[in-house]
């Protein structure tokens, strides 16, 4: 069982009025609010522990280093990674995907068989590749990707020659698995897929998709930005090669996120950024790189936010997660039932397997107008293309109104949303 009111008390930001009305925060897919324990953890770090990590001999530095590495172990445990060094801290999903696009392209174009076994070897191949040119890269994505899981791959194939393949979906926002498998036959080296669509709420059958991709010899990348806060993640069970996520969408601070990668791949991949911490030895002629995961963490990391992320994970782990999932599903189901009585209501994304949000438009009303009016009634939703323009094009609409839920939302808030949408629609028609 979970007590929503008890949970709400841990989120002071929710207890405020906007335009004189109680705030109803339904933009959780953009970012979740942070519980007090997370805010206090980060504050505490700057009050008592702040230090640069991994290099100081002094007490504080050692303590901060240990805390940071503990946070890594916590993330590894949360997603059930085999080793803590398989977790690389990044600024979030977007940075993780840029890291992957850059580093995997360099690894694959240097070594089509992917048999380099050390950083040194990868670099010899990198040099060889520079002389003979690159092997073209083929990447398969789905039609429902966020721009962050589309543009990095697209730019990479544009820059070096290659092809971006897109697996289509049906009118309900369900991926066409047959078409997906047909595209796998074209031999993409990388398959990148959203776990949960940020616009359509679709939960993709990623375990099956990963298995299929592996049968065709592709490396699999899962964009978990929208799933980490809502669904249990087990990277070993999924057998994905990479899984990326953002902290701020799972009750953690902004500016921290992560990348899980199987050891065998992370070891072969060349570094993404260069600088401090990620090096082993440096001379003017040559640099050797640090071991995992430090090879991918150039520069001073966001230690305070990493500790906040650890606390956010502990916050999630203390909740009855199946009950939370049921609660969030009830909010979505109730919202859809009640919204559907509004004239001209059209839901964008009606997959049977769905998570945490509802996207809709009303005939003859621009989503932007609707969002503007309900904002004045205290209801915070997102309107627009949600950084997934091709999805809007697919459905022939300029954008949607998206209400996205988190653990602290209530059925009363769903009612407020529905009433606000009703009133706005009457004004705008």
């Amino acid at each position, binding site marked *: 069982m979970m007590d929503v009111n008890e949970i709400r008390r841990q989120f002071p930001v929710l207890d405020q009025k906007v*335009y004189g009305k109680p705030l109803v925060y339904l933009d959780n897919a953009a970012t979740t609010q942070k519980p007090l324990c997370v805010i206090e953890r980060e504050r505490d770090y700057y009050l008592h522990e702040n230090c640069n990590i991994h290099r100081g001999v002094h007490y504080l530095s050692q303590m901060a280093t240990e805390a940071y590495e503990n946070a890594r172990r916590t993330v590894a445990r949360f997603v059930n990674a085999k080793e803590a060094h398989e977790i690389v801290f990044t600024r979030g999903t977007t940075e993780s995907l840029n890291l992957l696009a850059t580093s995997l392209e360099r690894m694959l174009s240097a070594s089509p068989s992917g048999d380099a076994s050390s950083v040194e070897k990868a670099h010899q191949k990198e040099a060889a590749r520079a002389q003979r040119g690159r092997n073209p890269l083929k990447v398969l994505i789905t039609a429902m990707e966020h721009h962050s899981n589309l543009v990095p791959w697209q730019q990479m194939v544009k820059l070096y020659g290659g092809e971006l393949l897109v697996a289509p979906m049906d009118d309900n926002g369900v991926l066409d698995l047959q078409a997906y498998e047909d595209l796998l036959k074209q031999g993409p080296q990388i398959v990148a897929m959203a776990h949960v669509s940020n616009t359509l709420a679709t939960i993709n059958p990623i375990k099956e998709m990963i298995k299929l991709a592996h049968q065709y010899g592709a490396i699999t990348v899962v964009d978990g930005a929208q799933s980490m806060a809502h669904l249990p993640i087990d990277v070993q069970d999924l057998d994905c090669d990479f899984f990326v996520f953002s902290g701020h969408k799972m009750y953690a601070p902004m500016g921290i996120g992560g990348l899980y990668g199987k050891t065998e791949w992370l070891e072969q991949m060349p570094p993404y950024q260069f600088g401090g911490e990620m090096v082993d030895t440096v001379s003017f002629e040559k640099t050797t790189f640090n071991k995992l995961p430090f090879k991918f963490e150039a520069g001073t990391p966001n230690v305070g936010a990493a500790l906040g992320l650890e606390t956010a994970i502990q916050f999630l782990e203390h909740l009855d997660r199946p009950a939370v999932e049921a609660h969030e599903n009830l909010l979505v189901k109730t919202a859809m039932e009640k919204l559907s009585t509004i004239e001209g209501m059209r839901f964008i994304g009606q997959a049977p397997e769905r998570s945490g949000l509802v996207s809709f438009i009303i005939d003859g*009303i*621009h989503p*932007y*107008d609707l969002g*503007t*009016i309900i*904002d*004045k*009634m205290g209801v915070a939703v997102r309107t*627009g293309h949600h950084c997934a323009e091709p999805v809007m094009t697919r459905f022939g609409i*300029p954008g949607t109104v998206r209400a996205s839920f988190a653990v602290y939302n209530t059925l009363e808030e769903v009612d407020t949303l529905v009433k606000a949408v009703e009133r706005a629609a009457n*004004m*705008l028609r």
Partner: protein
Amino acid sequence: MTIKEIQDSIVEDFSMFDDWMDRYAMLIEMGKECPIIDDQYRDEKHLINGCQSRVWLHAELKDGKVYFTADSDAVITKGIINLLIKVFSGQTPEDILSADLSFLDEIGLKEHLSPTRSNGLVSMVKQMMLYAEAFKSIS
């Protein structure tokens, strides 16, 4: 009416309402009354950049005065551009270019618009000024 007189009457209309919901209702009504752009001008060339919704604006010079028509797929946006059209349509290019725009601050419109919409408002005014500038040089 002069630009100043029209602006004053708009400021008065807006001050009648305390609640921003009512002011939005007024903007929506204005949107519905917008002088609609002719279909032949509803193209890329007449789109105003910087708006989250699409806005088309056209102007022509008749007897030394500028007449605007517009459209948008969002009705509040259409209301905002019609507000500007009410102020500037039927005025000479010189009067438009020398107009004082502080009425936009007086009605509190800028601060109550989202930043993207506020940028859109600035782009609309700019585009109207560009038309006036172009007509000034030919008239």
